[in-house]
């Protein structure tokens, strides 16, 4: 594909995402490149094709505290493009932090987020019932650590431009 065609797609998709943000009453996405899912594989495989620059699944999300290493969350149930996957409630990727620290999420590859909600439940819970919300909003997620103890942190993310939504999990030990 010629370079100018790539540029045109990026501009169109970016404009599209901004327009969607406007019609949904939410702030426009950041100026970061916005990707869109590919069409389903004509061969019938149950995932997008993963065209250049376009993730075939929802992006990874890593949580970190200031000065700490990022830990990629376990990807659970999601919808993405014209498809989706159903997964159980997950135990989560291990993450050890200090009390009172702020958790910041990083999306890779970068995809604009239109809404997110983080909640915490005891680590041995088998579902979200009774969860306590840690934060919610638009844009890149950031929220405070839960109280000391072992928890499952569940992050529910809706991506911009109708790309889809996904659930991520961490098993967080707060010292």
């Amino acid at each position, binding site marked *: 594909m010629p370079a100018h065609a790539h540029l045109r797609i990026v501009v169109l998709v970016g404009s599209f995402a901004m327009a969607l943000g406007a019609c949904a009453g939410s702030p426009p996405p950041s100026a970061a490149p916005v990707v869109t899912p590919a069409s389903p594989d004509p061969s019938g495989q149950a*995932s997008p094709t993963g065209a250049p620059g376009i993730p075939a699944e929802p992006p990874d999300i890593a949580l970190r505290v200031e000065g700490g290493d990022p830990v990629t969350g*376990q990807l659970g149930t999601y919808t993405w493009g014209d498809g989706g996957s159903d997964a159980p409630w997950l135990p989560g990727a291990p993450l050890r932090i200090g009390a009172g620290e702020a958790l910041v999420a990083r999306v890779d590859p970068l995809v604009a987020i239109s809404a997110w909600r983080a909640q915490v439940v005891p680590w041995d819970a088998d579902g979200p*019932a009774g969860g306590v919300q840690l934060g919610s909003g638009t844009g890149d997620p950031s929220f405070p650590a839960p109280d000391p103890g072992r928890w499952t942190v569940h992050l529910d993310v809706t991506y911009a431009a109708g790309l889809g939504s996904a659930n991520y999990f961490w098993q967080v030990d707060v010292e």
Partner: protein
Amino acid sequence: MNLMRPRPRAAALLALCIAASAATSTQAHAPDPSLGGALWAQNQQLTFRWRSGAEPPAAIKTAIRNAANASNATRASKAATFTYSASGASPIGYGPGATCGVNGIGCFTRTAPDGGFTMWLREHGRVFDWGTLRWCQMVANPPNGCYDAETIALDEFGHIQILAHHVNYSDDRDYLDAVVQTFSRTKPKDGWNMHVYGRCDVATLQLRYDTTSATAKYSTCLKLDTTLTISASPTSVAFGATTTLTATLKVAANDAYARLRGNPVSGRTVTLQRRAPGTTTWTAVGSMAAGSTAGTYTTAVKLQTAAEFRAVFTKPSGEGLVGSTSSVVKVTVGSCTTSCPLSAPLRISGDR
């Protein structure tokens, strides 16, 4: 220069706004959100086959067929139907080839209305980071912790229709309102073996695909305003002559009601009330009979004095319609000229 060019863009943007709104404005205890893709045609017949090289074992095939039948039987709408055929257009697979992501046990794609769909279920015994997948159908005495393949397949068929995951209350007390759930449950938790669409699944199927008829019930997950109008013909009668009151009941013309907007509503109880002009107390005349066209109800009344009438539709207990009351119509009566009674009682024609 193509002056029409911006219009499709605007239409497409509007459609996406609606889809995005539907997906993001959902609150707990509301109809399921919708996925962003296109709809199938109303009552579109979708056929599926087993994916070559990835055929499910017999027990899982049965579960998937049962789920397709359950979708057809409980959609309560003009949503698509699913039928197995050896030459079916859409493949359903099972096993390690599943493209369900690293942790998924079932997944789907949909390309409505012309591209068909796919579905995959992971294989029994697969070891994930979260544990080992057990399908209840694959063992003689299903242990606690197994997943019901029919429930998971019905969840996937719901996605294929257009349904996104239901948004539950924080304590999950409305979990049984939907089979299309973010987190499916294992035996023996409530809802682990749901073999019908929940009322909030059905609500969205009705909103997006319409109900099956004017007499069909609306999901109790909906709360649809109704409009009730009334007319009299004629509005002025001779002493002792008959006028016919006709009430028309419809779902309100609210854009949020999508395909249900303005639907005529038949087969419900609509009550006719009357009062003397200048008074405030209404008296029930009785239930109105079904009219000749959808959504209409009629009663013929013989009058010897002028009267005002209104129709009342009381919210039914078993469906998602809100009650409504019509405006008032007045019928005047001419003077009595021969054999006049001392009083002028109201009489109703027909069986009354």
